[in-house]
């Protein structure tokens, strides 16, 4: 055990450090300087993010294989960090104006950071115990965050729904894991992969485990909590759930399916096939009729999860590439959309589609960013979402799933319908009572701008995809 080994977990350690720093800062600063603390924390997180990009931890595993890291995992962690950073920047105004008076701004950071730490450990985990602990670490603080909005009954309701459903899900996953353990006697992923053999019990274990993880990715029929929790939670928590937490979960799901359940490909591929179709349809059909934008984006993110399964179905490097790439793209797209919703909701408290009518005429920039985000989610070129979706479809088609691809593209068309509904409200409609023009604070601007930049650049600029492609084979180890 030496320093170099610890450096493999630099990201987690830095975050823990930051978390403790915030804790100390919270204790020693006066109420007046809490606002500054927020700024400092965000900058601190930005530094952590930056370091993640600068110092690439060496590939390898520590703690006897419980913790692994490699370039792909680090890329994802960096991506998640960027996403969290954008979320923090977008929520700075809300934090300062709503939470500081309630004296719970620092706690927000601490909870969020601990959840991020959990996610980081989760995608680095090398055994089922670590995975389980990290999963809980990533979920439970978010439940607290979901019920953060003390003024709103919905917020508490969201918290309750999240924590109870999550516990049930993890209970089911645990039950599944226990059978897998019983069948192999191993908890490490690599041991398990070697020992697992096809049997009724292991299939049951796989499915239960998959169901528990699907909960986090919001796959149908394990998705029902999504919309309610997304709608009730504060918006930044919603975007965190829909982007960061989902992205990490998809990645680890792909990793586990590819490696641990390699022998079960004939099981999980048809399973994903069915679940993907159901997820896309259900997500889209529900999204069609939503008026509340948070709820709307919730269902849209359910549908997007269905698309991601197409990449996983490929089962190869191309699939891994397309999924990781899509997760990154999706992150920026969703954050662009959520950022605008956040900005408007924060300034005016309006979250319904109807309130957005005529938005372009009063707030053109916000509308444009929203449009970019929605187009990207819908997969309209030349923004990044198009490329992300295209590669997912390519991955699925590469394994011959043409019908599934067709269903997926039809769903993309349905999704376009409701994305266009928002655009219709913003651009086509003229309202007597539009949202008035307002200025955003600098953090919000930065947050929105970086989301927009990501949406624009990620697709057209191919080296990123190439980089993902070049390291994607790391998914297999």
């Amino acid at each position: 055990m030496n320093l170099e080994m610890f450096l493999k977990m630099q990201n987690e350690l830095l975050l823990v450090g930051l978390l403790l720093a915030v804790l100390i800062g919270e204790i020693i600063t006066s109420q007046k300087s809490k606002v500054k603390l927020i700024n400092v924390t965000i900058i601190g997180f930005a530094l952590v993010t930056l370091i993640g990009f600068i110092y690439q931890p060496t590939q390898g595993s520590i703690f006897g294989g419980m913790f692994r890291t490699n370039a792909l995992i680090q890329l994802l962690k960096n991506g998640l960090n960027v996403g969290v950073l954008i979320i923090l920047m977008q929520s700075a105004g809300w934090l300062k104006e709503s939470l500081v008076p309630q004296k719970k701004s620092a706690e927000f950071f601490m909870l969020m950071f601990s959840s991020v730490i959990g996610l980081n450990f989760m995608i680095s985990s090398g055994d089922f115990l670590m995975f389980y602990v990290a999963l809980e670490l990533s979920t439970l603080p978010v439940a607290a965050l979901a019920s953060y909005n003390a003024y709103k009954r919905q917020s508490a309701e969201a918290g309750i729904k999240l924590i109870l459903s999550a516990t049930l899900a993890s209970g089911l996953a645990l039950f599944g894991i226990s059978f897998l353990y019983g069948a192999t006697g191993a908890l490490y992923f690599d041991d398990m992969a070697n020992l697992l053999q096809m049997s009724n019990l292991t299939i049951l274990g796989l499915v239960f485990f998959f169901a528990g993880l699907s909960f986090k990715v919001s796959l149908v029929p394990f998705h029902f909590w999504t919309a309610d929790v997304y709608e009730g939670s504060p918006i930044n928590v919603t975007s965190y759930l829909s982007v960061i937490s989902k992205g990490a979960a998809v990645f680890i799901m792909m990793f586990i399916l590819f490696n641990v359940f390699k022998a079960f490909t004939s099981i999980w591929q048809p399973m994903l096939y069915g679940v993907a179709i159901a997820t896309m349809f259900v997500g889209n059909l529900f999204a069609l009729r939503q008026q509340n934008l948070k709820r709307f984006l919730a269902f849209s993110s359910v549908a997007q999860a269905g698309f991601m399964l197409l990449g996983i179905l490929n089962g190869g490097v191309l699939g891994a590439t397309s999924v990781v790439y899509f997760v990154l793209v999706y992150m920026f797209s969703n954050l662009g959309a959520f950022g605008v919703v956040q900005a408007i909701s924060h300034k005016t408290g309006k979250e319904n589609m109807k309130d957005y009518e005529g938005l372009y005429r009063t707030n053109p920039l916000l509308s444009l960013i929203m449009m970019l985000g929605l187009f990207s989610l819908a997969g309209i070129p030349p923004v990044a979402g198009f490329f992300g979706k295209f590669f997912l479809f390519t991955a699925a088609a590469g394994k011959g799933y043409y019908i599934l691809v067709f269903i997926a593209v039809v769903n993309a068309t349905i999704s376009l319908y409701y994305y266009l509904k928002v655009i219709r409200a913003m651009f086509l409609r003229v309202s007597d009572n539009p949202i008035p023009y307002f200025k955003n604070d600098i953090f919000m601007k930065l947050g929105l701008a970086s989301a927009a930049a990501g949406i624009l650049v990620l697709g057209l600029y191919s080296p990123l995809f190439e980089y993902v492609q070049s390291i994607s084979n790391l998914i297999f180890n």
Partner: protein
Amino acid sequence: MDILSLFVVAPIITVAALLFTKNLQQSRVVALIGSLVQFGMSINLIFAYLAERATGNTSIMVFTKSVVWFKSLNIRYDIGADGITVFMIILASLVVLAGVFISWKIKDLPKEFFISLIVLATGVYGFFISLDLFLMFLFFEVAVIPMYLLIGIWGSGPKEKSAMKLTIMLMGASALLLVGLLGLYFYSSPDGNYTFNILEIAKVNIPAQVQHYLFPVVFIGFAVIGALFPFHTWSPSGHASAPTAVSMLHAGVLMKLGGYGVFRVAMYLLPIGAKEWSWFFIILSVIGVVYGALSAIKQTDLKYINAYSSVSHLGLVLFALLMLNKTAWNGAILQSLSHGFMTALFFALIGMIYERAHTRDVRELGGLLKVIPFISVIYVIAGLASLGLPGFSGFVAEMTIFVGAFQNVDIFHRVATILGVTVIVITAVYILRVVGMMLMGPLKKEEYRDFPKATWYEKTGIFLMLIPIIIIGTTPLWISDIIMESIKPFIERML
């Protein structure tokens, strides 16, 4: 910067410049300059093309350029042009230019209007020059999406519904298309070196069994935007709701993507599938031709009449493509061009009439020849061109198609062709009906007397469309020879 990439870059620069404009005066001038440059480039392109061919370059595509984009998937920025591309680009640039003139006095959000217009143009240019299926698909969608905003914001009538219907149907078609393109990709190489490049896929013989499934997918995917019956229904309502310039671009250029795509991708890459399926789609396209024309007879909204007429005319394009011979294909391309100019002209005129009368219902109009002679006379000319009068482009195109179609000997093709030919009569009926009701006869309402005469920018827009119609109509030889030359490699695959 190579000569073709400019067609993507120039509009983007225009859009960028438009972002900084403040009002109508500025934005329309910028848009005008931009589209003039594009037009100039397209004229330059044809000379460059002829010069290139004169040097003895006989490759299928000239001015090719290939830049690797997504290396691992072998997605490349592959562009190139042949004679067909060149003409399509000229068509597009002219219609865009005319569209800018026609929108000279656009009222609401001028900057955004011109931006959307030019973005659409970018997509169209890009589509035409693409040799890479991925790129083609990308530009296809780039071209379709601005339509939503253009119709939705600046349209009239049930614009939101129409815009939505149009966008969703076209994107639904691209769903099929995408599946087809991916199929092509994964069958483009037996050993895993997949490619999206059209010319390279053409070197591979895709198994007949695969073509059997891929062809209808790709064909329908493209043909929906070419208003294939029964997927044409997005077009009439879309036209009716769209603002003038958008109708022009829509009918004049956008709908051409369908035929062009069918020709370049479905026919070229899947010849066996084409032969196998042609009978089925011939039936659909003939239905479209006759049905569109017959539907047009009964319409009262000018734009609906023209929309159905487009269904009919573009049905002929698909019909001709499915005839699978050189002459018919030549006719298809000519018809694409001809229809592009004619419908654009029609829509421009309809827009002018609507601006004055605030109605497009033929029953409410009458005797316009008296009050707006210039517009009316051009309308008559456009009508005559549309019904295939010699001297105008429509005649050349239709005759080429019919002669080509008649080269197929069997009774099925014969009957189909003869049914298709009947369209010349039906077209005459609905065109003359409009001319008779709207332009001739006694003046319907007294207030029509105060209609302002055509302005200079309206006239410019009109002439930009009219002149090519007459050029193609009177001196078709050089055009058809260039096209014929370019068709050769494509038809060789078919034989």
